[in-house]
């Protein structure tokens, strides 16, 4: 059942993303071609070329920001409207357990988040001349120096965990807002701020505790040893996972036992 849900969810959302992804790549390429590998040539180029470059870059940036906006909006819409709006009548009468609906929306939201990020990076790499990309190489060396090869895994994983948590947070906020009879949207907003605040406090508290624990071990001002940083990353990851699980469970309970579709 989950696979079927995923299939339809993907189809429903792809129609928004594929065109805009394609457009972004297109304008990255156009801009790159127009810039002819050397932006400084521009000053001597014809005014027609200047305008063309300006337009192309403008559209590119517009699309870039657009992708971020669309990713966020689609993510929220697929939960707020498609699950708790009229389409909810279709979804919640399917013989499917509630958690599968949640996982379905979550997985596809993660997919588009990652894809949007990836397409964004690809477009930048297309746009920017090769020398600039050497910066990326040095970034990777930096990671290795401070976190060891573990860093190559732990950083992306942390990145993924934080994306997942940020999505689930929104779902929980919307679900909590759904409990209100009036002003559901406003309530969701408020809930989101609440959850955000609470989770940030939880984070800070645990990190502080962790630091205290470290100082008590190796004396004041601990040196930035790779294993310490990795530990920090691990702890952060665990906190994210736990918070994500809590939010997921809360959302599931609300949708299962407190559903009230208008």
């Amino acid at each position, binding site marked *: 059942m989950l696979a079927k849900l995923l299939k339809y969810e993907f189809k429903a959302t792809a129609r928004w993303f594929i065109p805009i992804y394609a457009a972004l790549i297109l304008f990255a390429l156009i801009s790159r071609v127009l810039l002819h590998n050397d932006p400084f040539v521009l000053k001597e180029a014809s005014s027609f070329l200047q305008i063309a470059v300006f337009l192309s870059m403008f559209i590119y940036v517009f699309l870039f920001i657009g992708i971020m906006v669309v990713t966020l909006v689609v993510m929220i819409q697929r939960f707020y409207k498609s699950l708790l709006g009229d*389409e*909810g009548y279709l979804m919640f*009468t*399917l*013989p499917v357990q509630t958690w599968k609906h949640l996982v379905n929306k979550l997985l596809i939201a993660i997919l588009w988040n990652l894809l949007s990020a990836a397409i964004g990076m690809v477009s930048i790499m297309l746009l920017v001349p090769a020398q600039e990309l050497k910066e990326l190489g040095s970034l990777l060396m930096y990671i290795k120096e401070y976190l060891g090869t573990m860093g190559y895994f732990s950083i992306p994983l942390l990145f993924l965990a934080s994306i997942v948590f940020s999505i689930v947070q929104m779902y929980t906020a919307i679900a909590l807002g759904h409990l209100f*009879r009036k002003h559901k949207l406003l309530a969701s907003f408020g809930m989101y701020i609440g959850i955000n605040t609470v989770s940030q406090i939880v984070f800070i508290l645990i990190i502080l505790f962790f630091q205290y624990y470290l100082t008590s071990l190796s004396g004041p001002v601990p040196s930035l040893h790779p294993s310490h940083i990795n530990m920090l990353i691990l702890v952060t990851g665990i906190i994210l996972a736990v918070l994500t699980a809590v939010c997921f469970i809360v959302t599931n309970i609300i949708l299962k036992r407190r*559903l*009230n*579709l208008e």
Partner: protein
Amino acid sequence: MNTILECKNLTKSFGTTKALDGVNLTIERGRIVGLLGPNGSGKTTFIKICNGLLTPTSGEVRINGFNPGVETKKIVSYLPEKNYLNDWMKVSQIIRFFQDFYEDFSPEKAYDMLKRLNIDPNSRLKTLSKGTKEKVQLILVMSRDAELYLLDEPIGGVDPAARDYILDTIITNYNENAAVILSTHLIADIEKVLDDIVFLKEGQAVLNKTVDEIRDEYGKSVDALFREVFKC
């Protein structure tokens, strides 16, 4: 078990308003039941609770022995009052959708009905008129071999010819194993097709008899009785 739906002391409040107030109901298989009442009497609320789209404030509903959940959703076919299909799909795609999720769905039946009503399966739902979309929704619901059909105002927004077709479909689809509950305020059109009548007034079931019992006892049609009971 001949009882397909059992409702005990069902109450649903929205804030201070009681949409349903202690409703007790038993529906047997093989019956076509009319849930009648003026707007706001709780008909839609009752049906939504049976579907698990609303949670009761107190009391319970059991369908085939289960509370509304995955087990009941497999055997309940629901036609909501509103338009609930996602616009971006074509008719053929929503049929595929139903086929994917409901084991008892028959695409052949659906396509046959679409043909009879002159609806092009390739058209996008977005482009269809409101009446046509309602017909599509009805076709999807009736193409399922369910044990309980819950139809919320199935003939409300449709033209008289389509109305006849809908009633005809309900009669044709009849099987002794399934029950049909339909809510409506257009009683005259539908009276002859009903077995039992449940009148809902202000959230309570005030009358529960068969159509012929009513006509015998009161010497008038259910429609006429309804107008009396609910006189403004």
